[in-house]
């Protein structure tokens, strides 16, 4: 039924558009041909803006210094809300039962003590580095996911990325075409008005013509009765965004790659332990992962979700039961294609001497290695393309092997 609605609306707009001269945006419709191996890989990148406290999400309970450093907000294996043991050393935050289940089913993995090459503590520079894929800040014209898209054989698997939210995240900005979608329901301008405006822009303002026609085309595909935006809490919104994304990506001609961002992880004060502010947000993230899984259905088998953040937080809590900007943190992988059930970490230890600058979890894994490993396994990108184009000057961060089953 949803297919039927989509087709009708898309066809009417497409018909009007193609009635005029051929139009650049329409060359960017996802072209898709099933790859020879029958796999139909999908990748979802979730950016957690604000710097996630990795030590509170996947806690190193086996490290003798953890409880002292994380103090009043430390997780524990016992008590009213016990953390869930992932192995004999690491335990998962109790607000993430879905991720825990995926982990037990070997469809989720954790990479701990990970960081981008950025070593300062500005959110905005840190996010630039995380999303641009460059070794330093200030490069904001294009993101690594967009350059990875550009490097894919055109028309072979996927030629368009899905940007979720009212603006395109940097990670997906660049030359490769992207389409955008945000979960909003409101009375819409009719097709005729839209086409007249596209026509005006084509003559007067090509950049706006491109943006508007892309915005028009994706909006319809995502809508269904359950997609109306309700003013609710952040958890419901995270789930809703994930549900719409999964619905778009599950379609045969839908995007294979998507990027979205969740805000609010900057827990300077009253971060909370097993319950509280961070727990609340993690519950939302957990729900979003579950929505990806159920919404993608059979496609989940070939899907990898990468969850990453710009940097970590201080190992020791600050004076206000929170954590300040730090360095090492975690990355999460989930999806049917993930070779999971593992916490991958070269654990640096939390002794004072082992902390980065005496305050942060020392990063021992380059986040770029993790992402490069996923991109290589999912889309067959070469070492050279990954080291020169997708993540420029990153030859020393070699793709991590065997992340995808």
């Amino acid at each position: 039924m949803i297919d039927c609605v989509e087709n009708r609306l898309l066809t009417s707009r497409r018909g009007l558009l193609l009635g005029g001269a051929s139009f650049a945006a329409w060359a960017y419709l996802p072209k898709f041909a099933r790859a020879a191996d029958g796999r139909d890989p999908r990748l979802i990148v979730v950016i957690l803006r604000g710097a996630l406290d990795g030590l509170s999400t996947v806690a190193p309970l086996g490290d003798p210094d953890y409880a002292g450093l994380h103090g009043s907000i430390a997780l524990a294996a016992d008590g009213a809300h016990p953390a869930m043991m992932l192995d004999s050393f690491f335990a998962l935050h109790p607000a993430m039962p879905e991720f825990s289940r995926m982990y037990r089913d070997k469809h989720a993995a954790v990479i701990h003590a990970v960081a981008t090459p950025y070593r300062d503590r500005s959110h905005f520079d840190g996010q630039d580095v995380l999303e641009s894929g460059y070794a330093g800040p200030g490069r904001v014209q294009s993101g690594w996911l967009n350059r990875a898209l550009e490097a894919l054989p055109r028309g072979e698997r996927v030629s368009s990325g899905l940007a979720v939210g009212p603006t395109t995240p940097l990670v997906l900005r660049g030359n490769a075409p992207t389409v955008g979608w945000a979960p909003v329901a409101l009375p819409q301008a009719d097709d005729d008005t839209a086409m007249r405006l596209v026509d005006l822009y084509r003559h007067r303002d090509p950049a706006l013509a491109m943006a508007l026609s892309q915005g028009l085309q994706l909006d319809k595909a995502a809508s269904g009765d359950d997609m109306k935006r309700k003013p609710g809490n952040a958890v419901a919104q995270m789930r809703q965004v994930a549900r719409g994304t999964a619905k778009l990506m599950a379609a045969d001609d839908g995007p294979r790659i998507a990027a979205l961002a969740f805000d609010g992880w900057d827990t300077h004060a009253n971060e909370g332990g097993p319950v509280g502010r961070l727990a609340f947000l993690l519950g939302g993230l957990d729900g979003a992962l579950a929505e990806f899984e159920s919404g993608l259905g059979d496609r989940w088998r070939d899907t990898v979700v990468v969850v990453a953040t710009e940097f970590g937080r201080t190992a020791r809590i600050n004076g206000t039961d929170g954590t300040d900007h730090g360095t090492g943190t975690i990355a999460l992988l989930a999806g049917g294609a993930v070779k999971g059930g593992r916490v991958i970490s070269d654990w640096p230890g939390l002794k004072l001497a082992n902390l980065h600058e005496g305050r942060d979890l020392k990063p021992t894994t380059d986040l770029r290695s993790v992402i490069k490993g996923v991109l290589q396994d999912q889309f067959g990108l070469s070492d050279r393309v990954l080291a020169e184009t997708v993540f420029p000057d990153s030859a020393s961060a070699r793709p991590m092997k065997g992340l995808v089953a």
Partner: protein
Amino acid sequence: MARDSQAALVALNRFGFGARGGASGDLVNASSDPRGFVKAELARASGVLLEAPGLQSTQQLGQAVFAYQDQVKQAREAAKTAAPAETSAPTEQKPALRRNLSLNAAAAEIAGQMTEAKPADNAVRPEAMQPNAVAPPAAKPAPQPLNVIQKTFRAEALARLQRATLAECGFTERLVVFWSNHFCISASKGELARIWAGAFEREAIRPHVLGRFPDMLKAVEQHPAMLFFLDNQQSLGPDSRAGQNRKRGLNENLAREIMELHTLGVGGGYTQEDVTSLARIITGWTFAGRQGQLGPPGSFVFNTNAHQPGPHMLLGKTYEPTGLAQGEAALADIARHPSTANFIATKFVRHFVADDPPPALVARLRDVFVRTDGDLKALAVALVDSDEAWQAPLTKMRSPYDFLVASGRLLARVPEDPSRYLNGLNLLGQPLWSPAGPNGFPDTNAAWAAPEGMKLRLDIAAQIAARLGNNIDPIDLLEFVAADAASIETRRTVERAESRQQALALLLMSPEMQRR
């Protein structure tokens, strides 16, 4: 009299909020003396202040929140007494209850920015409540009446929107929006931030928009809304009496953003040690709480008991232990730092002229900033006097706020209820006074000309047109917007529309209305 419609478009759109419709004659006035038209507002220094009946001070509003929170608490406790929990273990009850409440508070806080959606529901209520109307069987529960926080937020929003709609050119109001976004707080931080958002702008930003940067900086960093937003009221000097007693300590949040976002900018020559040091220096900068032990509840106070004692080294200079004056001296020096002049000049030109700001213009404004000790009126005048600001093509995208205000001005609709604006801003990704982070809303075309955003703008333009398009002459409006500076294509598109409504939607979305 020479008339230059193109320069008038720059005067009204680049510097202001666009031409007003009706009998304003804005475009004609601006074309005869474009620079003079823009600068005329700067001469009326008192015009930047905003006073409206019912708008209260930060202190009054703080006390209103405290009283409201007490009421809620009492009501909750009364309800609990009336219906005692069936399965209660008395000794366990208290801590468990507190945990739940803090969880709820976190949820409410994070969801806070969505609450503006509610008043829109209220707007349709009167019809449903007609005396003869029969309630449908599955009627929604009646919406809660607005609480003092929501009422205040809406009143502040309305006053700001009315001022922007009525302003002649709107340059002063655009400056207010620029500085308010530079020194942003977010109403979604919590109830105090929400009720204080408007007062913060009226008290800390507006008085200094045509004044001095060092004064604005001090007013901002000592305002309870900023101290709350960036957690400084919780930061205690580890060696202060309060820090020792309560075993709590520093929070770097405000100190970092002062240097990174408010003054020096990233790469402006400060280190992690400087961040920590400034955090120590401004320990004790807080506001009086509901008990009022430190002063009138909701007012800025310097709490000596929380202040980290001793001299502190910042950016290579030692600041002697002079209490409140120690931090004020540090801020005054940071305001005069060369990195600050550079950071501010760049951001200012990027906002008003181009995403890639012309370097020569940036350098000139930086020099003005340095020479005048941060005179912000001189900065604005230097911008208007520059050639670059008049020669650069109008390539910047209007932000959602600019777009909605410009539309209201063109249609000569002075808002009497802020709901449509607030809902529109939420949808378009610029919820009023609620940016996602302390760096404020983005200021580049990449952010505001994104596919989804353009599509939503069109939907909103169509809604406005559906509501108001019957009563207007779109060709007249095009004359107000751009006259002979309008492109032939835009003119033709508006003229050939199949209905007035469609013509208005297209006009609102035309490049002449979207670019500034």
